[in-house]
């Protein structure tokens, strides 16, 4: 009988965490992620299907029942579902023209929490992360060192950082160094 090879998925850096000076890093559990692109005409129908109103203000996000929608561009959103839902399936019934792509395993999420969280991220991110410029709920695609990332402020001293899986070694190393310096 032929041998059956069964691949088991290995999330990058699963369960890793690190405590630094006034900041802690934690690799987050795998989540469903969707890259959503749509023109204004389809936004209302998509919001209804997803169950979260798609934010239309730059640098903003919306969260409801474990589902976070981040504004990335005028017609582009990143949907993160941590409640085990299926955002792609929810969008399937929407008639309006849109593009919904599953990017669940493209990204690795890292939580950066603590009074020095903003300083740790600012070690490689040129954006102003003060509460006035980047309030709780603010979300933006930006850079960390030499890679691109998506940053979401989940609390006054808590961030969720999303980077591409292949960049996660670099990002984890960079943040660990930055946390040690803090």
């Amino acid at each position, binding site marked *: 009988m032929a041998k059956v090879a069964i691949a088991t998925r290995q999330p990058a850096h699963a369960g890793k965490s690190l405590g630094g000076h006034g900041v802690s890093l934690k690799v987050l559990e795998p989540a469903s992620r969707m890259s959503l692109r749509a023109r204004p005409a389809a936004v209302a129908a998509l919001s209804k299907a997803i169950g979260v109103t798609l934010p239309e203000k*730059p640098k903003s996000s919306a969260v409801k029942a474990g589902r976070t929608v981040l504004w*990335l*561009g005028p017609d*582009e959103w990143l949907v993160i579902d941590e409640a085990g839902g299926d955002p792609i399936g929810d969008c399937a019934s929407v008639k309006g023209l849109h593009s919904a792509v599953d990017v669940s395993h493209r990204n690795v999420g890292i939580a950066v929490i603590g009074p020095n969280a903003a300083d740790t991220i600012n070690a490689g991110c*040129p*954006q102003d992360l003060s509460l006035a410029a980047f309030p709780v709920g603010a979300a*933006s695609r*930006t*850079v960390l060192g030499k890679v*691109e990332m998506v940053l979401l402020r989940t609390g006054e001293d808590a961030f969720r950082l999303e980077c591409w899986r292949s960049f996660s070694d670099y990002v984890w190393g960079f943040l660990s160094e930055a946390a040690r310096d803090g």
Partner: protein
Amino acid sequence: MLLIHCPYCEEERPELEFRNAGEAHIARSTNIAAESDEDFEKFFFIRSNPKGVIFERWRHIHGCARFFNAARDTITDRFLLTYKAGEPKPDLEKLKADGGPAAWANRPPDQLNEKPKAKRSTKGEA
């Protein structure tokens, strides 16, 4: 680092998030096959490369990923104005006359930060 105003994100963002995308307002012919070689060369290769104000395309590649247009001074690197793609070319004379700061990075240091309370003493410094 320059702070560039992204017309889609509606705020100043660090220059690292942006990428230059060449000269703006270069219209492709609607009938490219009928173009003469000289006209095609002009359209395809020849750029104005001025010493002074240039209209350029920029892309907020590590942000909203949108292309937009900017009027930039090639001597001072000062951004006079940024505007959404598809919007008409602004009047150059009016831009030059404006003179107000287009972005935070173009403001003089004393306007960027609060002035120090007291003038620091220089006594005792070598």
